[in-house]
Structure formats: structure tokens, C-alpha cells
């Protein structure tokens, strides 16, 4: 734990120093056909995510944060603007399998056991030799003993743990998480956020889409507030809470102050 605290501290330091930028988004605009015209989903987004930084995109549904995440992950081509990963193209990063993706729904394969689901991306990328990595990974996400269970036998929280293990199996250095805990009940959700902090080992960047203010504060080094229609970066707030952070950090005055600040930014952006 001490090691993690140290790492988090140094990451914050490096960010403050303008450390290495991992994902760079410049002048990104995304337009979709709508009716007889075009709807602007994202408008001139600039965003930097540093190596090992945890960044949350915060905003209500429909503000384009999921679209932004998909563009960064190379799943949608942007209408205009650039995304680069360590100076190279998104497609290069995609070919190098540097992205780990987690969605709101676990999207597990019902015919595969927990262990086989966690190993899915190893299988499809012909890395079956790394299957031995899966068992420790399942321990990390708290699923030891459930290796041979099928998804239908698991609760929503456990399924999302499998999805997390599946994404981590390829050891990606950029995690793209699209409201991964949004379909869980409030208690499970808080617990999963704390677990994610524990699992996030500091050797990767995370871009985390959420509409929950306290989740964003608990997890992030930096929270990017987005306005909607068109989606723009309305505010950026650095979260200077010491790491490691436990659930009790939510009780602190600074946490509440961040909550109020972010709420203010959201109200300003969305009226």
C-alpha cells in the first residue's frame, strides 16, 4: 500500500510538472446525421491524459462522453480533429493492443466459465500461453473460487469484476471505462469503486466515464466536466486528495468541497 501511495504521489507530481502525455486529443469534433441536418455531439475537445493518470469524464447522459471514449479507443473515426497515443495514431495503439475496455454491461459470454471469460481476449489474440495469468488476475478482482461458474450464476457486481479481469488480461496501459458501475446498486457500486482503486496498480492510464460526482472524486487525479449539446469541456478540476484513498475519504471536508465545486460546474454547464 505504501508503494501505491508513493506511486500515486509521483504520478501527481509528474502531471503537475507537465509529465509525459499518453493520450492527446486536439480540436476533436464529432457530428452525427440527425433528421435533415447534423447534430454536433462533440465540439472542439482538447484533452490530455498523462501516463498513469486517472481521469474521469463527468457529465449527464447525452453529453457525448461515451462518444469521446469510443473515439479515443479507435472504435469511431472522428469527424474532425486528432487523437494521438504517445505521439502515434490510435490505430497503431489498437494494433499494439494497448487499450483495455470495460462497458456498463459486463457483456460476458454465457457459454464460457468465469475463467474462460477472463481469458477471452487472450484466446482471440492467440496468446493462450498467457492463460496462466488468469488465475492470479481473478484473485486480484476477488473471484477466486468462482473460476468454473457461469455468468448466469453471478451477481451484477461479480460479472463486472469478470469484465474487469478480462480487460486486464492483455495488460493494457490505457483503460477505457464507460460507466462500468452504473448498472450496479449503490452499495455494490461504492465497494467496486474502492476495489478499482486497489486494483489500479498505477502502471496504466484510466479514462473513466461517469455521471456520479462522488465516484469521480474518489477515483480520479483529474475530473473533466463536460457540457452537453454540443459536448464541450466545461471545466477541469484536479483532485488533490492523498492516495491511497479508502471509502472514508468521502467523509472528509475536502471531498465535500470538491463535490460542491463539481456540482457548481455541472449546473453552470447544463443550466
Amino acid at each position: 500500500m505504501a508503494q501505491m501511495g508513493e506511486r500515486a504521489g509521483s504520478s501527481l507530481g509528474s502531471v503537475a510538472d507537465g509529465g509525459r502525455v499518453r493520450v492527446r486529443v486536439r480540436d476533436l469534433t464529432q457530428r452525427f446525421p440527425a433528421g435533415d441536418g447534423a447534430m454536433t455531439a462533440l465540439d472542439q475537445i482538447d484533452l490530455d491524459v498523462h501516463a498513469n493518470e486517472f481521469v474521469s469524464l463527468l457529465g449527464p447522459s447525452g453529453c457525448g462522453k461515451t462518444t469521446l471514449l469510443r473515439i479515443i479507443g479507435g472504435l469511431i473515426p472522428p469527424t474532425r480533429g486528432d487523437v494521438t497515443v504517445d505521439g502515434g495514431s490510435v490505430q497503431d495503439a489498437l494494433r499494439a493492443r494497448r487499450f483495455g475496455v470495460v462497458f456498463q454491461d459486463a457483456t460476458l459470454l454465457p457459454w464460457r466459465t468465469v475463467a474462460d471469460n477472463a481469458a477471452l481476449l487472450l484466446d482471440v489474440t492467440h496468446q493462450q500461453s498467457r492463460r496462466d495469468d488468469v488465475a492470479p488476475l481473478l484473485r486480484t478482482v476477488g473471484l477466486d473460487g468462482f473460476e468454473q461458474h457461469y455468468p448466469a450464476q453471478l451477481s451484477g457486481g461479480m460479472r463486472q469484476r469478470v469484465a474487469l479481469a478480462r480487460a486486464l488480461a492483455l495488460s493494457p496501459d490505457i483503460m477505457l471505462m464507460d460507466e462500468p458501475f452504473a448498472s450496479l446498486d449503490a452499495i455494490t457500486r461504492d465497494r467496486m469503486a474502492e476495489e478499482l482503486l486497489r486494483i489500479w496498480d498505477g502502471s496504466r492510464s484510466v479514462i473513466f466515464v461517469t455521471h456520479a460526482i462522488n465516484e469521480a472524486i474518489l477515483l480520479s487525479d483529474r475530473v473533466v466536466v463536460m457540457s452537453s449539446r454540443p459536448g464541450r469541456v466545461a471545466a477541469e478540476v484536479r483532485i488533490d486528495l492523498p492516495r491511497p484513498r479508502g471509502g472514508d475519504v468521502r467523509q472528509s471536508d475536502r471531498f465535500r468541497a470538491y463535490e460542491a465545486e463539481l456540482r457548481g460546474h455541472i449546473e453552470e454547464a447544463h443550466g
Partner: protein
Amino acid sequence: MTIDTTLTVDSRGELRRPGWLRRHRTVILPIAFLLALLVVWELISRYTDAFPDYVLPAPTAIVQRMWEDAELLWSATKVTLVEVVVGFVAGALIGLALALPIAYSPTIRATLYPLIVASQAVPKIAIGPLLVLWLGLGALPKLAIVALMVFFPVVVTAAEGFSSVDRNLLDLMRSVNASQWQIFRRVRFPHALPQIFSGLKIGITLAVVGAVVGEWIAADNGLGYLLLQANTQLDSTLLFSALVLLVVLGVVLFILVEVAERLLLPWRQSSFDVPLSA
């Protein structure tokens, strides 16, 4: 953790396992009902003059006839069985092969789908003579009719199955640069299997119908042929014997497909288990 759904809790809170009869009622009930029907039928044809023997022979008379003509009926059953199985396999393979381009290409889907639907609107018995003209008097026209009936439910269910994969799952595959073949093999195909099996189960029952239709058009053996012969000679016990064997054939083949489904898709039963807590 699995919950035995046959267990109940009585008013004193004790677990109760239901009796043998209750646990096997899905098998016992239809058999008991069928037996009751047969007894009534037997009594009516033996003790009343409601129906002459050539209209409705007694069940025991049918059984006796099946025993006497076992050899004839067995050879006819074998002929029909081969037509059903070979035609079914051919039709299923054609259905799967057609489902692939339909699932992957909207253009091919738009081109082929209406034609495939139209092919089902054509009465098989009407194109039978044409098939005989093209394929001769042997097994081929029968196999063609069986395959023609089987491929349709398979192509529809398989195309639907291949293309109904969750978009997020496909995005996940793309995010690790997985090949189309890997996506098909690991996701689309297994995802489609339950639907394909629904198509196969419809197909296997249609296959028996197809074989009989094929034999009615031109044949010198088989249960359908025997049925037609018995009918023209008002030989009702032989007719019912062939009918019984056709039903048995259809039911046994259906069960075989279902057994294959359970062996290949073992995870489907587990969906009835009760979820665990987080």
C-alpha cells in the same frame, strides 16, 4: 450453488421432496393420457359399430399387423430414415452456408432474403414432378424436397443468431484488433447456436414431412410410399402401421437433436440457478 426447484417447504418449515410421480410428471402425464386415449379407441372399435374396421382399426389390430409385417415395415422405415437424415444434414448445411453471407452483407441479405422466403411459398408437392424430371426417380428428388424444407428454418435462425451479437461485445473484439475469423469462432457462432438449434428442431420435423411428400411423388419403397399403397387398397391397419412408425421416427429424431443441443450447450441449464450475492 444450485437450487433444486422440485423441493418445497411445508407449513412447519421442513423441506419436502415431492414423490416419484410428481418429479417425472412431464414424462408420465403425456404417456398416461395417450394410453387412456388408446384404451377408449380400443373399446370403441371392439364393442361398438360406430366405425367400420377399414375406417378405424383397433390399436391391437394395428400392433398385430406391425408384428406380422415387421420385415416390410422395417425396410420401408430404413429407406425413409436415410432420406430424412441425409436430406436434413444437407438442408442444414445449405442453411448455415447461406446464413453467413446474409448475416455479413446487407446487400446479399436484401438480395437473397425475399427469394428465400418465396422459395418457401412454393408448394413442395407442386414442384415434385419437376424435381423428378430434373433428378430422376431415385433418392435425389426426395433428398431435394427434404433439404428444401429444412434449410429455411436453419437459414433464418442462423442469420439472426450470427448478426444479433451485442454491439459492445463486437467493439470489445475490435479494441484488441481481433480478426473476423476469431470474432466468428469465439463469439458469433457460439452466440448463434441456441437459435440454430431452434431452427434444427423445426427442421427435423419438417424433414419427415418432406420425405413423405417426396415418396408420394415417385417412389417404390419407404413409409410414405407404403402409406399411399395401403390407402389405395383400403388396407387401414397397414396405413396406421406406417403412420405410427413415421410418428416414432419423427419423435426419436427430434429427441436426438435435443440431446445434441444439451450436450453442446451445457451452460443453458445453468441459467435457472439462483444468482449469488456480490
